[in-house]
């Protein structure tokens, strides 16, 4: 899913006519001070990262003056939460809160539902997981007609909203459901939305996630990559996205796994399929090697797409090896992988002579694929050749993560020692 930070989600809510606190984002203490001066009253300074539990992590602070806002921003902007650096803060007016509520719109994947679902609780402002089940009210929403005001009123009655507030709450939830549909959201969670002392309902937080498949319909979002990424978009992520973006012929997924490009022990990682990817990670974890990247070439991709992924994986600097992890038996024609890998290794190994390459390929057309690999790489795989650490395995090791990991480790140690001896 394409995920928005809180301030981005609130901007889209505001554009759709949903009440949000007055505020704006800041990337420095100076900008934070200016924003607080613009608001002209007590403010909340909220660190912006894609992670829950921000209050507990100490990146949400309430302050009275603009100089305090500046100081709070300076404190928050150097923090890292769950591995994610805080790059921005949201400065927004402090609300006079009378009561906090929770609501979210998500997809109900249940077989008898397959539609959006509204969840609501008058116990907002805390982890929804800690709220007793009987205090969370749920309602499926007709995907064609959406949430109608009369359904919303019925729902609010069931949820215990007092009669005099029914219209206000029903209208608020109905508008949010329209936003959910308009922006093709997968999740729209407002926790909390608050009733202020003057009786207004305002979104005090916003978690908005957009369906990846809909991003093409929303150029206004300016989303570079419609993918779940663990952190900020890297150059490798952009390269990976360019491989996928306009080519639907099978999967050619590639993304950075946050390696530092300097430390030893990272492996260019090229699994084939999701199950295979997990087994490949097992293989690496068991021997203390780390994946520099995640990749996946499955769903019978064309050779050119496999080539692009493999070439990008192998282009990563300072890797200690390359693992083509075809664990599990694939239904796709594996000879496309074989052709692509042969081409890539012929091009890349002259730049990284002796790089360990453990190639595990099993499944449909395995015999032909093995023949392509063995024949295509034979000249490189001589004892003093640039491919002297290429090892090719087939179905005999299809689930043997321990063996594959150990072979890769042994070769990587040898390679590292050779590089150290050469002073590289």
């Amino acid at each position, binding site marked *: 899913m394409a995920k928005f930070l809180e301030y981005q989600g609130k901007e889209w809510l505001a554009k759709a006519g949903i009440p949000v606190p007055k505020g704006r984002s800041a990337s420095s203490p100076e900008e934070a001070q200016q924003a607080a001066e613009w608001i002209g009253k007590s403010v909340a300074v909220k660190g912006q990262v894609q992670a829950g539990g921000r209050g507990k992590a100490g990146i949400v602070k309430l302050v009275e003056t603009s100089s305090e806002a500046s100081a709070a921003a300076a404190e928050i902007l150097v923090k890292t939460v769950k591995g994610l650096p805080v790059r921005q803060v949201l400065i927004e007016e402090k609300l006079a809160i009378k009561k906090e509520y929770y609501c979210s719109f998500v997809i109900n994947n249940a077989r008898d539902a397959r539609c959006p679902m509204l969840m609501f609780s008058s116990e907002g402002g805390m982890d929804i997981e800690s709220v007793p089940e009987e205090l969370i009210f749920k309602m499926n929403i007709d995907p064609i007609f959406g949430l109608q005001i009369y359904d919303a009123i019925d729902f609010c009655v069931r949820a215990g909203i007092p009669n005099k507030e029914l219209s206000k709450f029903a209208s608020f939830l109905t508008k949010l459901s329209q936003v959910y549909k308009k922006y093709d959201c997968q999740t729209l969670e407002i926790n909390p939305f608050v009733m202020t002392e003057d009786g207004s309902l305002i979104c005090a937080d916003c978690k908005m996630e957009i369906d990846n498949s809909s991003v093409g319909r929303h150029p206004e979002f300016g989303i570079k990559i419609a993918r779940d990424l663990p952190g900020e978009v890297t*150059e490798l992520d*952009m*390269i990976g996205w360019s491989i996928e973006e306009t080519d639907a012929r099978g999967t050619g997924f590639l993304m950075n796994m946050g390696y530092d490009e300097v430390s030893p022990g990272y492996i260019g990682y090229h699994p084939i399929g999701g199950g295979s990817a997990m087994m490949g990670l097992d293989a690496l974890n068991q021997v203390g090697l780390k994946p520099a990247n995640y990749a996946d070439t499955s769903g019978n991709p064309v*050779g*050119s797409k496999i080539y692009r992924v493999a070439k990008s994986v192998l282009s990563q600097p300072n890797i200690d090896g390359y693992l083509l992890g075809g664990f599990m038996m694939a239904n796709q024609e594996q*000879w*496309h992988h074989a*052709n692509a890998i042969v081409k890539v290794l012929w091009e890349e190994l002259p730049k990284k002579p002796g790089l360990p390459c453990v190639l595990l390929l099993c499944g449909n057309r395995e015999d032909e694929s093995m023949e392509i690999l063995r024949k*295509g790489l034979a000249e490189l795989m001589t004892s003093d050749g640039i491919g002297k650490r290429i090892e090719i395995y087939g179905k005999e090791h299809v689930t043997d993560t321990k063996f594959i990991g150990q072979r890769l480790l042994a070769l990587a140690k040898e390679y590292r020692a050779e590089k150290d001896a050469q002073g590289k």
Partner: protein
Amino acid sequence: MLEIKEKSITISIDTNKCDTCETKACAAACKKYARGLLQIVDGKPSVEHLSAEEVLRLGTECLACEIACKFEGNKALTINIPIAGLDVYLTKRGLQ
């Protein structure tokens, strides 16, 4: 030189080398691994029996012709597969 453009790749064939090629492995590979786009006409690979549109539609970018030509033929065929952003990535790291 014969240039064949598929959806995202360009196949270049130095057809002068094909006269002395005994295997014509490229066409055999194209038939085995893909849709047989490459045919041998007067001893050289050709796609003249197809329109440019048909080449685009039928081309599967399997790369088999290049591998076959390299190891069984006369090393006459190369495929260029551009990767957006990779040159910049490598240049920044002094690896280009």
